[in-house]
């Protein structure tokens, strides 16, 4: 199956005729690409050979011996004397294979192995999580004997042991296929589990000093062909045959991983990786797998609320009342100075389109910006000029491009932490020879696992580093190279421009990798002050006319709007009277204190939220919105690939953002033209992409280097530049309620250059203009004068508690 699939762009998709090998399996002749394993060739003719250790994405190992077949002719006229493991045997021209379907000896060999596998297996299927979906159970029935002849004593172990906070191991059930250990080593690069001991006492073990803290550990549970690995989260929760499975798309990052949501009686019980060779293959991150309880907490909003005019308290309201109240308030605010719209980055494309439409059509403003994080004007220009519409067929890059790339340059992006699926694909590529170069402050564990090269760069100096890569002795970019820029690069002046220049001058592909699932969709649907849906520049009159015609309105506001920072500033100063806020966490914004103050200063705030937050507490009208599982929609991946998904649970009591906005707009007397998600999608698709001139990009220069004044510090402390990014598992609100998952997060530490770390001792206090945080110290190969801290692993996070990224902080050792 997988052998046939060639990358779309990186290489030919046609298998050369001469590379085909013809083999006869069970009397059926079939042609398969050379090097195909017999077990896969048999799948092509519909013969399923039983197997345990074999996995199409792992290197063959031939350990379980379940897939034995007879080979009467190896292609050279001679037969193989012994049954062969079809998972390690490659096809040869003229080879004749007989499987259990046609050969009694092969059948006996398989039955013999199956019987042996079961002698030490506890056969506790009735209480096993895997029972009902277990390859051992299924294949024991299809390829085993009805009764065991074993009458002896089984090997026993104490029942499950934790190999991490999340993953439990039942050694009695294990058939020692080594899929989990091979996945950890070959795919994730986290070989924290390994087989130990020998003989029948062989078992999966951990090194006590290095716990199994891998962001991808849940995949081992899914590929375990027996019930040996279970998750603390799902163990004993349900039986597979009670579950309804719905395909969906993961909402935790911009990777668009296919997932399967298993639910029962309106409740999600677990999530599994979907199989999408184009995107996530068969792997997902632990966050995608385990973090789904956030929508089930006590703080979940279940009905609309409006602020009572007499008591000043929020009180429950009906939907129609809330629509009407919100519309009245927003109309007043619009008249009093205007309303800014902050939809956040977690929306489906349809919901984002609704916000973009709501701002322009219902509120008559371009003051809309999805970027609930540090951002810049340069970034907005970059998105409008380069990113929008650079979808699958365009100049951007895809997963397949990463795999086929000669070199991948990472700037402002730490894939293992911020885009796990990209990380896994990069690791696959790196193992096949792709060179990874990271413009980053230090060698992260992820970069080490990619065997990558570090271009050591202090925050703020990314532009210079990227410019230098255009002519670099060690790295030459060609047409297959890919430059991946993370959203963090927005905080480094000139860096996005330099990345664009690097790509243009070398012919490399360029792609922007945001952190949130809705970010790219928000760009495409016009949730930017400078951009209308479909990449239409606000500044372009023709584009405005085009959009206005599609929306059925006379005209659209002509001047580009305020970006998110300017919206916050205008609300604070009173220039903007109202705010419509979607899923924005104040602590994610560039200046959390200012954001909170703006909420208080604005005369009218409408919040659309899933759970109670500081925004809903400050709002005048609060609309509960549907979590991803309760709505249909489309996430757009970092590649620009639309990933539509359907409703999983379908709770009729919750509405998606688009429906809420449509309700308010209708009360305002300016309907959006759609109410439901599918209508929004249809309108969006009808509006289509702008085929005119792209928005231009102005020249952006790098910021000044650190001055001497920046470096002066009180004695006993040092002034350093702050580098920071979020770790995959941290205090993010969508991981709330996941105690087992959070327990596998990396311990928060401050990273300092070797010499400083030594001088500072075990703990430091880091002080910035917003506060101080204490952290244990580790040394890293950072540039001089740079400290790194995790962005959201302590307190309310770095932006709220410390300083903005790239600014100067004071580091002092704690006694």
């Amino acid at each position, binding site marked *: 199956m997988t052998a046939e699939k060639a990358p779309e762009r990186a290489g030919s998709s046609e298998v050369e005729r001469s590379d085909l090998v013809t083999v006869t399996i069970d009397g059926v002749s079939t042609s398969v690409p050379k090097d195909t394993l017999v077990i896969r060739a048999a799948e092509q003719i519909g013969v399923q050979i039983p197997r345990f250790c074999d996995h199409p994405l792992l290197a063959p190992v031939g*350990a379980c011996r379940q897939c034995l077949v007879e080979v009467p002719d190896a292609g050279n006229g001679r037969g193989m004397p012994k*049954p062969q493991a079809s998972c390690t045997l490659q096809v040869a021209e003229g080879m004749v294979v007989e499987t259990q379907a046609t050969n009694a000896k092969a059948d006996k060999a398989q039955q013999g192995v199956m*019987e042996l*596998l079961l*002698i*030490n297996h506890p056969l506790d299927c009735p209480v096993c999580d895997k029972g009902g979906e277990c390859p051992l159970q299924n294949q024991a029935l299809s390829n085993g004997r009805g009764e065991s002849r074993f009458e*002896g004593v089984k090997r026993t172990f104490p029942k499950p042991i934790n190999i991490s906070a999340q993953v439990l191991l039942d050694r009695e059930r294990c058939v020692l296929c080594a899929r989990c250990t091979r996945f950890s080593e070959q795919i994730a690069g986290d070989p924290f589990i390994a087989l130990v001991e020998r003989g*029948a006492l062989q078992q999966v073990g951990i090194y006590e000093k290095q716990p199994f803290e891998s962001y991808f550990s849940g995949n081992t549970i899914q590929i375990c062909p027996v019930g040996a690995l279970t998750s603390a989260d799902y163990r004993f929760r349900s039986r597979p045959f009670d579950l309804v499975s719905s395909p969906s798309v993961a909402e935790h990052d911009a990777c668009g991983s296919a997932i399967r949501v298993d639910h029962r009686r309106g409740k999600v019980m677990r999530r599994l990786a979907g199989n999408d060779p184009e995107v996530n293959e068969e792997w997902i991150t632990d966050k995608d797998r385990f973090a789904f309880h956030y929508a089930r907490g006590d703080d979940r909003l279940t009905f609309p609320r409006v602020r009572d005019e007499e008591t000043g308290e929020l009180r429950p309201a009906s939907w129609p009342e809330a629509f009407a109240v919100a519309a009245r308030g927003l109309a007043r605010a619009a008249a009093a100075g205007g309303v800014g719209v902050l939809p956040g980055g977690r929306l489906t494309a349809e919901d984002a389109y609704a916000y973009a439409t709501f701002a322009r059509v219902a509120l008559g403003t371009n003051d809309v910006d999805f970027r609930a994080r540090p951002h810049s004007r340069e970034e907005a220009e970059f998105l409008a000029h380069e990113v929008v519409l650079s979808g699958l067929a365009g100049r951007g890059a895809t997963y397949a491009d990463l795999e086929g790339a000669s070199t991948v340059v990472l700037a402002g992006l730490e894939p293992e932490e911020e885009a796990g699926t990209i990380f896994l694909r990069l690791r696959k590529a790196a193992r096949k020879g792709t060179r990874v170069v990271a413009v980053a402050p230090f060698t992260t564990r992820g970069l080490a696992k990619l065997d990558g090269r570090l271009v050591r760069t202090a925050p703020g100096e990314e532009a210079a580093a990227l410019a230098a890569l255009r002519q670099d002795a060690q790295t030459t970019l060609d047409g297959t190279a890919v430059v991946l820029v993370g959203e963090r690069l927005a905080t480094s002046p000139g860096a996005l421009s330099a990345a664009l220049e690097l790509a243009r001058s070398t012919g490399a592909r360029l792609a922007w990798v945001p952190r949130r699932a809705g970010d790219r969709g928000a760009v495409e649907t016009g949730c930017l002050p400078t951009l209308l849906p479909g990449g239409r520049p606000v500044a372009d009159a023709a584009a405005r006319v085009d959009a206005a015609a599609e929306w059925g309105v006379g005209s659209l506001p002509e001047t580009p709007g305020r970006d998110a920072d300017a919206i916050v500033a205008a609300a604070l100063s009173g220039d903007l009277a109202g705010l419509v806020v979607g899923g924005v966490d104040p602590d994610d914004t560039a200046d959390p204190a200012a954001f909170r103050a703006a909420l208080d200063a604005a005369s009218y705030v409408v919040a659309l939220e899933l759970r109670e937050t500081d925004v809903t507490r400050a709002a005048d009208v609060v609309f509960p919105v549907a979590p991803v599982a309760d709505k249909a929609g489309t996430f757009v991946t970092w590649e620009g690939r639309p990933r539509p998904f359907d409703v999983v649970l379908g709770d009729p009591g919750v509405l998606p953002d688009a429906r809420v906005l449509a309700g308010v707009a209708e009360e305002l007397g300016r309907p959006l033209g759609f109410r439901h998600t599918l209508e929004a999608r249809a309108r969006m698709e009808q509006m289509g992409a702008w085929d005119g001139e792209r928005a231009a990009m102005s020249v952006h220069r790098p910021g000044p280097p650190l001055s001497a004044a920046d470096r002066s510090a009180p004695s006993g402390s040092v002034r350093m530049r702050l580098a920071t990014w979020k770790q995959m598992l941290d205090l993010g609100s969508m991981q709330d309620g996941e105690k087992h998952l959070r327990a596998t997060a990396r311990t928060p530490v401050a990273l300092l250059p070797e010499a400083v770390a030594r001088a500072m001792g075990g703990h430091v206090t880091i002080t910035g203009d917003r506060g101080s945080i204490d952290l244990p110290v580790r040394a890293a190969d950072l540039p001089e004068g740079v400290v790194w801290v995790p962005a959201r692993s302590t307190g309310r996070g770095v932006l709220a508690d410390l300083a903005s990224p790239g600014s100067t902080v004071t580091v002092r050792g704690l006694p």
Partner: protein
Amino acid sequence: MTEQQARPIDPLTPVLSADWGEKRSWTLPVYETGGGYRAARRALAEMTPEQVVGEVKDSGLRGRGGAGFPTGMKWGFIPQDNPNPKYLVVNADESEPGTCKDTPLMMASPHLLVEGVILASYAIRAHHAFIYVRGEILQVVRRLQQAVREAYDAGHLGRDIHGSGYDLDVVVHAGAGAYICGEETALLDSLEGRRGQPRLRPPFPAVAGLYASPTVINNVESIASVPGIIRNGAEWFASMGTEKSKGHVLYSLSGHVTNPGQFEAPLGITLRELIDMAGGIREGHELKFWTPGGSSTPILTAEHLDVPLDYEAVGAAGSMLGTRALQVFDETTSVVRAVLRWTEFYKHESCGKCTPCREGTWWLVQTLKRLEAGQGEEGDIEKLVDLCDNILGRSFCALGDGATSPITSAVEHFREEFEAGMHTPAWELFPYRASTVFTPEVATA
């Protein structure tokens, strides 16, 4: 006895064991007095690597570790256009029950092995050689380390050996006590610092062995035979032995013979001759069964006493020459008990990688234990044989195959003893004290 008297010459051909009687035979001076290191000096000075390979090919030397693969041909498989370094690895992980030839060889003549290593490394153009020694035989490890040190000091190893321009470093590596590490690819994994488990082939070690580089793995005795071949010529070596099994080998007699020990003789000698030289079967007893090459080779009986002990004839008799570990058992021995002990060894040593060996040995031991205790059940023997059929040829490496050999051959030759296991404990049929060789008062009684 009449046959032996008819022979014009002594059947023993001490080559490897020639020095064993010398005082301090393991030291460099003693070894050099007997002509030691002359072959290496001459080869480095006068012969090309190809000539060394050619000489070994011509000699007909076959691997002494059990499989009998032609040594010169194995060397010839090393791709010389491969840019990676080449390695020689000597398999000195002698661990099979009954096999005890390499240990005394390395104990008494470590320099013979070192000289062989120099010649073999030179032949395959390796500059690094490793001797992987079974960790339990600590004295041997020390002897080898001492010998390697002496060889370095004397200029036989190191940079520019004797002005030839050839460099060679030799590392003596002690294993950690796993039978599986005698399997050549498991040995490589272990040598690289991993857990010793057999590797998937291809790639074969000749192409991607140690550190994914071309590697030759040879048994101690094979390598130790090379200096003699270079010193005396291929013809001399080929003059010994039989048509397809040339040269001298060590036969290790153990068990119920009067004088157990090592007998170096040409391939093709018979067990009858060897037992005669060992002073016959333990007095008052007679041969019951024996292994030709360690516990992994199917057992043979008294009817096979005149089978020439070479690769072909033993194979034709339904067994394998293996390591020529001739374990001799007299009529006091319970076959069921002996087979159980061997099977327990395989269960203990199974690495766990593949199902048939890991689970099969676990099961076999339990069934055999019942038979030993006289608690066997109807159908146990058929089950035992069928189980062996489900392991033989199904396991990942030869360890699983080896575990079945003693069982299937024992059932074939002594089925009645297994049948007796349905009702009578083996210790009643064959009182165990009678078969022990360490209590003479019982043995002679």
